[in-house]
C-alpha cells in the first residue's frame, strides 16, 4: 500500500520546490474553476495572472499593492520565526492608518516638509502601540496571542468605523463615512510620474533588507530563531523571552502601522472604512510562501499583489466576483502547507505489514533499544534526527 514515510533528513529540494508546486496546483485548480464556471480556462488564467501586467501602468500598480504586503510580511516574519503567532497585522494596519489620518487631518491644508514624516511616524507609533497590547497580554497574562490579536483586529475595525463615522468624518461628505482629503504636504511623493506608485515601495524593500540582516547577522535575530525552535533552550541560554516577544510584536506593529499610514497618505489620500482589502491576512500567506526569508517574501508579496489585481481584472473583464482573489489566496496557502508536508515525509509503496504496537518515534526507539531490536537503519535515522 501507499504510505507516508518520515524522511531521515528534511528534503532541501522540497523546501524550495514546494512554493512553486503550490502555485502550479493553484493555477491548475483555477483553470478547473474557470471551466466549471463555463469560461475558457486559458482566457481566464490570462486575464487573472497576465493581463494586469501587460502595461507599465500595471507593473506600477503591482508594486503599489505589493508594498503594504511586504511591509507587513517583514514584520510578521520576525514574529513567526520566533513562533509568536501574531495574526493581528490587520489591526495594526488599521490603527496605523487611523493614527496617521488623525495627524494628517489635524494639519489641514498647512504646508511643510515636516508634515509627511510626522504622519508616517504617527502610523508607526499607533501600530506599535496597538501591538503592545497583545505583547503585554502575552508576557504578563499568558493569554494566547492568536486569540487576543484576532479580537484586537475586530476592535480596531470598529474603532476605525467609529472615527470615520464620528470625529474624523467629513461634514461635507454627503453622509458618507469618510474623512476630508489630506493636504498635499501629507501625501507621499510619487515615484514614477504618470502612475500611482509612491515611495512606500522603498520603505518596503528597506524593511525586507532589515529583516534579512536581522536574521543573518545579529544576535537578536539568532535569539529569536532559538526562541522559535526551542523555547526551553532559549530559557537555558538565558535569553530574555519577554523582551524578544515585545521586540517582535512592536517591530511587526510598527511596520504594519507604517503600511497603513502609507495607504491613507498614498493611493487613497483620505480615511475610508475600506482602507484594507485584507492586507493583514494576506501577508500571513506571503510569509509562509516566502519561506520566512527576505528574498522569499519580496517575491511572494509580488505574487499575492497580483492576485488582488487579477481579481479586479476578472470583475471587469469576465464579470466574475472579486472574491476570486480571496479564493485563490486561500487555495495557495492550502496547497503550500500540503506540499510542505513532503519536506518531512515521502510517499513510499510498500507491502502491508503488521504495525508494531508502540509508535511514536521516540518511545518506539527507546522501547526497541531496550529489547535490542534496533536495526542499523533506525539508528542512523535517530542519530541524524538528533544531530
Amino acid at each position, binding site marked *: 500500500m501507499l504510505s507516508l514515510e518520515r524522511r531521515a533528513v528534511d528534503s532541501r529540494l522540497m523546501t524550495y520546490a514546494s512554493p512553486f508546486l503550490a502555485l502550479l496546483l493553484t493555477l491548475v485548480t483555477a483553470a478547473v474553476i474557470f471551466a466549471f464556471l463555463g469560461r475558457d480556462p486559458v482566457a481566464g488564467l490570462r486575464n487573472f495572472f497576465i493581463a494586469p501586467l501587460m502595461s507599465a501602468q500595471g507593473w506600477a500598480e503591482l508594486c503599489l499593492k505589493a508594498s503594504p504586503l511586504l511591509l507587513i510580511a517583514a514584520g510578521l516574519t520576525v514574529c513567526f520565526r520566533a513562533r509568536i503567532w501574531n495574526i493581528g497585522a490587520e489591526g495594526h494596519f488599521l490603527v496605523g492608518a487611523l493614527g496617521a489620518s488623525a495627524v494628517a487631518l489635524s494639519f489641514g491644508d498647512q504646508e511643510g516638509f515636516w508634515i509627511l514624516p510626522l504622519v508616517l511616524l504617527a502610523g508607526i507609533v499607533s501600530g506599535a502601540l496597538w501591538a503592545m497590547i497583545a505583547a503585554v497580554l502575552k508576557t504578563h497574562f499568558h493569554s494566547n496571542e492568536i486569540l487576543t490579536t484576532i479580537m484586537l483586529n475586530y476592535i480596531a475595525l470598529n474603532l476605525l468605523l467609529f472615527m470615520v463615522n464620528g470625529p474624523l468624518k467629513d461634514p461635507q461628505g454627503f453622509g458618507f463615512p469618510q474623512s476630508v482629503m489630506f493636504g498635499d504636504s501629507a501625501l507621499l511623493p510619487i515615484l514614477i510620474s504618470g502612475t500611482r506608485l509612491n515611495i512606500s515601495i522603498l520603505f518596503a524593500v528597506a524593511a525586507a533588507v532589515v529583516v534579512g540582516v536581522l536574521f543573518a547577522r545579529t544576535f537578536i535575530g539568532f535569539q529569536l530563531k532559538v526562541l522559535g525552535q526551542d523555547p526551553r533552550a532559549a530559557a537555558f541560554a538565558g535569553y530574555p523571552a519577554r523582551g524578544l516577544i515585545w521586540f517582535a510584536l512592536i517591530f511587526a506593529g510598527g511596520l504594519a502601522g507604517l503600511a497603513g499610514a502609507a495607504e491613507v497618505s498614498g493611493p487613497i489620500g483620505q480615511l475610508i472604512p475600506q482602507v484594507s482589502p485584507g492586507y493583514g*491576512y494576506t501577508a500571513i500567506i506571503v510569509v509562509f510562501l516566502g519561506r520566512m526569508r527576505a528574498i522569499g517574501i519580496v517575491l511572494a508579496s509580488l505574487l499575492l499583489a497580483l492576485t488582488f489585481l487579477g481579481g479586479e481584472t476578472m470583475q471587469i473583464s469576465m464579470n466574475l466576483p472579486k472574491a476570486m482573489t*480571496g479564493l485563490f489566496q486561500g*487555495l495557495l496557502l492550502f496547497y503550500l502547507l500540503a506540499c510542505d508536508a513532503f519536506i518531512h515525509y515521502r510517499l513510499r509503496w510498500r507491502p502491508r505489514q503488521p504495525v508494531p504496537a508502540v509508535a511514536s518515534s521516540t518511545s518506539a526507539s527507546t522501547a526497541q533499544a531496550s529489547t535490542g531490536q534496533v536495526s542499523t537503519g533506525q539508528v542512523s535515522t535517530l542519530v541524524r534526527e538528533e544531530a
Partner: protein
Amino acid sequence: MDMTLIENVLAAAVVAGTPLLLVALGELICERSGVLNLGQEGMMLMGAVAGFIVAYVSGHLWLGVLAGMATGVVMSMLFALLAVTLAANQYAVGLALTIFGTGLSAFVGAGYVGQTLDGFGKLRIPLLSDLPIIGPALFHQDALVYLSLLLFAGVYGFLRHTRGGVVLRAVGESPESANANGLPVMLVRYLAVGFGGAMTGLAGSYLSLAYTPMWSEGMTAGRGWIALALVVFATWRPERVLLGAYLFGTASILHLVLQGMGWNSPTELLAMLPYVATIVMLVLLSRNPMRTRMHTPLSLGQPYRPSR
C-alpha cells in the same frame, strides 16, 4: 428594568449564544482529542453560505442545515488530512482553513448577497414557555436552539459516561500510550475533527437560516474565534461552555439592551463589547498559567507522528 425587558434580553442572549455554543462544543471534542483546529471561522462561513444557498434553492430549511453540516465536515476533513495525517503545523493549517473558507464563501455566495428567505420560526412549547423569566428564553425558540441543547446533553453525557469519552480523552492526553493500548489514535482524531466540522457547519447555517436569514460576506463576524476562546474559558468542560456561550450571547446583544434603555452610545463602540469581553475573559483565565495548563489536553496542538 421591567420583567418583559429581562425576558426579552434572556431570550435574545440564548439566540445569540447558540451559534457560539455549537461551535464551542464541536471544538471542545476536537481539542479533547489533542487537535487544535483554528479553522472554525472559515468552516462557519462555509456552513453559513452552503446552508443558505441550499435552503434558498430547494426551499427546505432542514436541507440547508444538512448542507451546512456536510460542508463543515468536508472542510474539516481537509484540515485533518493535513494536520492529522501529514502532521503539518495545526496553527498554520487552521489559519489556512479560515483564509480559504473566507475566500471561498465570499466567492460562492457572491450571487446570493441581498437575497432573503423565511428562516426558522419560533416554536412555543406549551406550558413551559409561560414560565416567568426563563420561559421565553428556553421554551419559545426556534428548532435549532432546542437541537443545540440536545447536542449539549449528548456531548456532556458522552464525555462523562461513555467508553468513547474515555477513549477520546486518552488520545488527547497521550496518543503514544493510547496507541500502545491498541486505541486507533488517527481514527479517533479524524472522528473528533469531523464532529467539530459538523457542529461548526451547523452553527454557520444557524446564522444564515435562523439568526438573520440571509447571506452576507463575513457574516460570522469573528464568532468562530470567540468560540475558540470560549473553550479555553470553559477549561474544556461542556457545562462551562454552555454557561460561557450564553454569557457571551448577552455581551453581544448588550448594545441592543443599552439602546433600548435610552443609552445613546455610538453603535461601533458598543459593537466592540464581545471582543473586549473575550480579551478580558482570556486575561482573567490565563493569568495563572498553571491553572490553564492543568486542564489543557496534554497533547493539544502537537501532531502525532507514528514511527516508520
